[in-house]
């Protein structure tokens, strides 16, 4: 019996599940190795749970989604969150800093039609998560690695160290040292293979905090490069704004601002 795979979403942009369709070279092999039981973005077929492997995209922003997630967890042997939304609340967690009623009013003419939670929260706030893939979006090769590792019983090779490791391995020139471009790579988890520095741009943190991120030290250095408090706060408050390490670092700076 092939393991049963489910892929589904909560609040998100669909990009992370699209990654699975983006592995053009391996898609049919994967489809041969697992039984794609439920993947509405790609198939009308709906096979009931339980599922051996469930890939969850998106963050929880409504009470209904919270309930849906709980029953999904019950049906899943291994539940993996894919992407910054599912893992850290996503860009929509910026609402956590604002009054959602205000947001609803800005976007919708009839706020009374909209039901949402005040906060956008990661999956792990609600149910046990077996593995998390970082990234906004995830790296499709990491997704393939995760699936093949779980199928073979290997420890998924998803390192938690910083982007710098991949940056040097890729042969990039450090944009922070050599160009004076502020880079969030030293506190951001590897996984993207250091795309931004390869394009002469500083990392802006889409893979979320790395293991043991020293944001205080990096902040001091960014300031020396001319970055303002506001800019530092904004870069931490993007796709992984609700990831504890980034949230705490941005709050430290924000609180420091008010004398």
């Amino acid at each position: 019996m092939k393991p049963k795979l489910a892929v589904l979403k909560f609040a998100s942009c669909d990009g992370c599940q699209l990654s699975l369709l983006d592995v053009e070279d391996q898609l049919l092999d994967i489809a041969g190795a697992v039984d794609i039981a439920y993947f509405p973005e790609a198939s009308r077929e709906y096979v009931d749970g339980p599922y051996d492997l469930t890939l969850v995209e998106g963050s929880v922003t409504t009470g209904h989604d919270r309930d849906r997630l709980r029953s999904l967890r019950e049906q899943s042997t291994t539940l993996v969150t894919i992407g910054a939304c599912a893992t850290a609340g996503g860009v929509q967690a910026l609402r956590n800093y604002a009054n959602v009623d205000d947001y609803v009013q800005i976007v919708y003419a009839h706020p009374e039609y909209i039901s949402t939670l005040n906060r956008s929260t990661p999956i792990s706030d609600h149910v046990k998560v077996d593995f998390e893939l970082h990234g906004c979006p995830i790296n499709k090769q990491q997704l393939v690695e995760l699936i093949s590792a779980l199928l073979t019983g290997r420890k998924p090779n998803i390192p938690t160290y910083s982007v710098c490791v991949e940056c040097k391995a890729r042969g990039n020139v450090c944009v922070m040292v050599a160009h004076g471009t502020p880079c969030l790579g030293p506190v951001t988890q590897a996984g993207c293979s250091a795309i931004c520095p390869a394009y002469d741009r500083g990392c802006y943190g889409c893979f979320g905090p790395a293991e043991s991120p020293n944001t205080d030290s990096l902040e001091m250095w960014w300031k020396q490069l001319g970055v303002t408090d506001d800019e530092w706060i904004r870069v931490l408050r993007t796709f992984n704004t609700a990831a504890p390490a980034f949230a705490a670092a941005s709050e430290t700076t924000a609180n420091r601002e008010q004398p």
Partner: protein
Amino acid sequence: MSRTISVDYLARVEGEGAMYLEIEDDQVKDLQFRIFEPPRFFEAFMRGRHFTEAPDLTARICGICPIAYQMSAVAAMEDAIGVQVDGSLHELRRLIYCGEWIESHVLHVYLLHAPDFLGYESAIHMAADHKEVVERGLRMKKIGNDLVTLLGGREIHPINVRVGGFYRTPTRTELESLVPDLEWGYQAAVETARFVAGFEFPDFDRPYEFVSTDNGVRYPFMGDRIISSGGIDIPAREWNDVFEELHVERSNALHARIKERGAYHVGPMARYSLHFEKLPAELQALGHELGVGGECRNPYKSIIIRSIETALAYRIALDVIDAYERPVAPAIPTPAAAAEGHGVSEAPRGLLYHRYLIDAGGLITDAQITPPTSQNQLSIEEDLRAYIPGRTHLDDDTLQWQLEQAIRGYDPCISCATHFLDLTVKRT
């Protein structure tokens, strides 16, 4: 006799939507195309962000068409601060857009829509009987992704687009490495168009008002004007004078319409019908050969138009690479200025409008984003309403599948629209 057809969770569309249909005798009594995907409040949290962040932030509205968001955003910001990106930098923008059209169109044609016509639940199921077809699609799609990756750093939420240009521009040699694949892709797209034109289509022409971006000269990716088959011809900045967005109870997405006129249609069929004469002669000839001529009004046939546009995107990519000279600088300076800016561009699924107000410090004070699926929502509902009469003899399953197929013909992107599906048909 009355019956209900209901699809709680529409498959093979991007995002979460539902359809509910109540039919009495030969008439539709109630119809709801409902978008329940939870809202993500982009317009709200864009406030207070720096204008240069807009391309990266708005890309996250949609993982299928991030380039479209980035392009409309940079267009709006550049409009606001009064700079113009032209020459090779503009050509590179067209090139990366080619990549997105190819990727998105091929995804839709092969993985989302073709299974409907061939009677499969999914492309994976379809691959069991039509392995070569699916493999061709995957290879075509990959070329689109490769193009976006080379220019943008990665296929989803590329990192290399910025207000003013790019962070790093490719060398000619890097671009030339793609040429053989693009040449193969063009031929494959032409074959795809011929292949899908052989499908069976319901007889169903609709009196749409087509709307698209216009730049006066070329088949549009980008442009500064908006035109329609109903005579609209306005600069992008007059958007709010002509169009409006309504909020209806059943949907987390806003519905756009032409003021005092109602539904309109954006997307490949609109672009094709409004700009047919701008297609290269061989693609015009292909359109005639495949019986869609200079205008297509049958939503089921959008798959043919998408295939022709895919060929077009390969063609344009080859032309851009052929003429490419690496720009002197990867971007032009972008000094902040307090102003309002409007930007339109053609996402694979249709016109995407952005408007921003920014202050002197460069911070966004107001944002408005109207994605194609919001604009097509009314049109989709009207299609469904129009499709039922004369077809109530069909059993529920067939009817449901055909209605779903009609919706899928729009390649709706619900993730975009919520900032948008579940199908229920009730027959009484």
